[in-house]
């Protein structure tokens, strides 16, 4: 069967012309997410007078910084067909090292450096175990999830370090002077835009898509599959460290329990964003929309005094929906195709 015949004869629900106009990074899934965001914003604004205010935006954006930052490398890793479940533990461990360094009298920047180095090493350990030992990243990072969290508890026990540098707390809690835009939000936007452009238009992003689609083909095309994957794990660790330190500044405390369970929300957002669990597919724009959707819903529920348990449930439902809806629609599409084709031959 040649290509032309398939192209001409296959009846698809979306006309070819329309499909061609949609770029790869903004397809039907992204449109659906955008519609959900608009719907959520409209409902939230209608039910709560406090939702659509600059104040609420500022509070929500400040609170979501740690989570938002970690979503960026997770999206990259999952496009490459890997996953890092140890991010929230690295987040706590790096903050712990940073906090201990500060209370030990180290300056702010050297202490941040030490914390980020901790994250890099934590990521490198994951990378070495996955790439060089050849273990599945799901299993490796479940292991290091426990290891890094445990290490934080060993170092800090149940203490909290609250005497943090004022520069950090200002960055993590305050807005740009005279505006309602948090410092952290600006930092996140810079990181997110760079990550999005690089993933969809950069040489590295193209390599990551190729690796996630078929690592063997990537290797046979001369791409350094191992080095790139290792690099992504280190990137994940470094960003988790920065997020953890920023979060410590936001709540003004370093505790070994910081960010417990956050990894599932991070992974959830990436999945809701439409990135395939099996790698090679998805768009960063979708992930950003999913992040926006979850943040809007969280803010709405917080304003409505919903319990944290409910908030977890809603994120969970969205996650299941993100996997179920495309699978169902594909199945429906296929059975409709079958019936139509059977009819037309007779």
């Amino acid at each position, binding site marked *: *069967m*040649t*290509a*032309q*015949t*398939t*192209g001409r*004869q*296959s*009846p698809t629900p979306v006309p070819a012309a329309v499909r*061609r106009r949609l770029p790869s990074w903004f397809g039907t899934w992204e449109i659906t997410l955008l519609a959900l965001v608009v719907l959520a914003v409209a409902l939230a604004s209608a039910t709560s007078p406090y939702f659509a205010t600059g104040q609420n935006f500022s509070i929500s954006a400040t609170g979501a910084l740690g989570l938002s930052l970690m979503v960026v490398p997770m999206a990259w890793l999952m496009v490459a067909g890997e996953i890092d479940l140890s991010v929230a533990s690295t987040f706590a461990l790096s903050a712990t090292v940073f906090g201990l360094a500060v209370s030990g009298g180290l300056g702010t920047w050297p202490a941040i450096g030490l914390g980020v180095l901790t994250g890099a090493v934590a990521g490198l350990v994951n990378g070495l175990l996955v790439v060089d030992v050849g273990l599945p990243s799901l299993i490796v990072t479940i292991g290091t999830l426990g290891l890094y969290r445990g290490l934080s508890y060993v170092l800090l026990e149940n203490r909290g370090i609250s005497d943090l540098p004022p520069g950090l707390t200002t960055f993590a809690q305050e807005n740009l002077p005279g505006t309602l835009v948090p410092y952290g939000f600006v930092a996140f936007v810079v990181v997110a835009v760079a990550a999005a*452009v*690089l993933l969809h*238009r*950069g*040489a*590295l992003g*193209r*390599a990551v*898509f*190729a690796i996630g*689609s*078929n690592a*063997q*083909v*990537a*290797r*046979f*095309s*001369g*791409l*350094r599959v191992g080095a790139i994957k290792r690099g992504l794990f280190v990137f994940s660790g470094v960003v988790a460290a920065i997020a953890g330190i920023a979060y410590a500044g936001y709540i003004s405390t370093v505790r070994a329990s910081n960010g417990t369970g956050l990894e599932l929300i991070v992974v959830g957002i990436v999945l809701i964003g439409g990135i395939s669990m099996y790698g*090679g*597919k998805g768009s960063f724009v979708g992930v950003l929309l999913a992040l926006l959707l979850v943040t809007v819903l969280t803010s709405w529920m917080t304003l409505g005094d919903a319990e944290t348990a409910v908030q977890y449930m809603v994120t969970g439902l969205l996650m299941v929906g993100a996997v179920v809806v495309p699978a169902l629609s594909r199945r429906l599409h*296929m059975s409709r*195709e*079958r019936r139509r*084709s*059977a009819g037309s*031959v*007779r």
Partner: protein
Amino acid sequence: MSTPVIELSGVAKRFGGVVAVRHVDLALFPGEVHALLGENGAGKSTLVNMLAGIHRPDAGAIIVDGAEVTIPNPRTSRALGISVVHQHPVTFPDLTVTENIMLAGPAPRRRTRLLDWGTARRHAREALARLDVHLDISAEVKHLSAADQQLLEIAKALDTGTRLLVLDEPTAALSTREVDRLMEIIARLKADGVSILFVGHRLNEVFALADRVSVSRDGATVVTGPAHEFTPESAVGHMVGRSVETAFPKAEVELGPARLEVRGLSRRGAYTDVSFTVRRGEILGLAGLVGAGRTEIARGLFGLEPADSGEIVLDGAAVSIGSPQQAMRHGVAYVPEDRHSEGVVLEHSIGFNLPLALLERRPRLGLLSPQADRALAGDYIDRLRIRTSGPDQLLGALSGGNQQKVVIAKWLATDPSVLILDDPTKGIDVGAKAEVHQLISGMAERGLTIILISNELEELLAVSDRVITFYRGAQGPEFDRRPFDAEQVLAAMTGQVSDVHV
């Protein structure tokens, strides 16, 4: 002849928008060997699956003993006396021969409903005796050779009620001797009055065997007749829809200076002491059986599985190639053996796949230009005549031959000086093969150094300037003057001649 055992009348089948079988008429008589020929994608396997009860025709009728039947599942197919041996063995590798044969039909049970192992073993022995093959019935199937597994498939498929045996490309994995054995079995079954449908595209076998021949093209039977009315050329003509003049155009090329030299290259467990020189514009063929070490040598030169010892010399200077990146820096490119798992990303577009081998040269954090990618893809689509709707088409939607052209284009885009082609026409149809051969010849004309590996000896001998044989990892005789003597090359490949330089 008498009435047909089974007759297909105007059957059709489509999958989604793709018509796999358009209109097939086929009558199979008792005691005849009927060959069904066609290119890949001609609808042969779909036809087999309809007889096996895996697919149901959308239109037309299947007639058994003059009555129209429906075959909703494989069990019904078997009950009608149809035994199907599929192209790829469908055995359970971790179970024994006895268990595999037992699972092909209803398992024998005792009154207690427990399995009757004694009867199962007896059945297995009988099934193998019917074919006169000797296999250890308690051996696990994964320990059998490919040929024995194929025979087991036939033993499984046959039972005492078999009236039609369908063999879907049964000889693909077999050596010449094993094919002879299969031929004997077919002759015996034929004498017993079993009708045999032999589906394939290796022509020599077909003509040695068949009473009648049908050719299918684009999902329809285009011609049916007694085998003696066909020649291999006329059959190929019907398969591609035009007569193929010269399947292998080989241009005469003025050879340049030595480009690649290999001295004493060895890799433990793969090949030992390999030495050869290839010049610019030359096509060097590596001949050998599967497992002779040819692919391993290619991968050694490309740095995927570097050699343990020996020297690689490019343009007179010794180089070390320890990774694909190093190989590419020295202008070495490798078109791998397995297109789907090593060559292209099926779920992405031509525009995505074509620049893949160029990525390593780009700055890590640099940006790509979608316009440039599309232009590159468009350029190669024109130059290699890749049949597609455009650079945005997914690789998975292309035919095998066009996918292979994309793999070749991906490497040509890196502007290599040494191109290693590992079985570049595997699984692609006759028309596309000729185009690939033309392409290879054209690249040599432009001064590229080419190393060709092929499992089709005919192709290797037609396209190469020089042929080196390998047998079990050791370098054998070299043939450096066209036209090559196929029998001598074959003897060297199978280890029957061992003196170097003929």
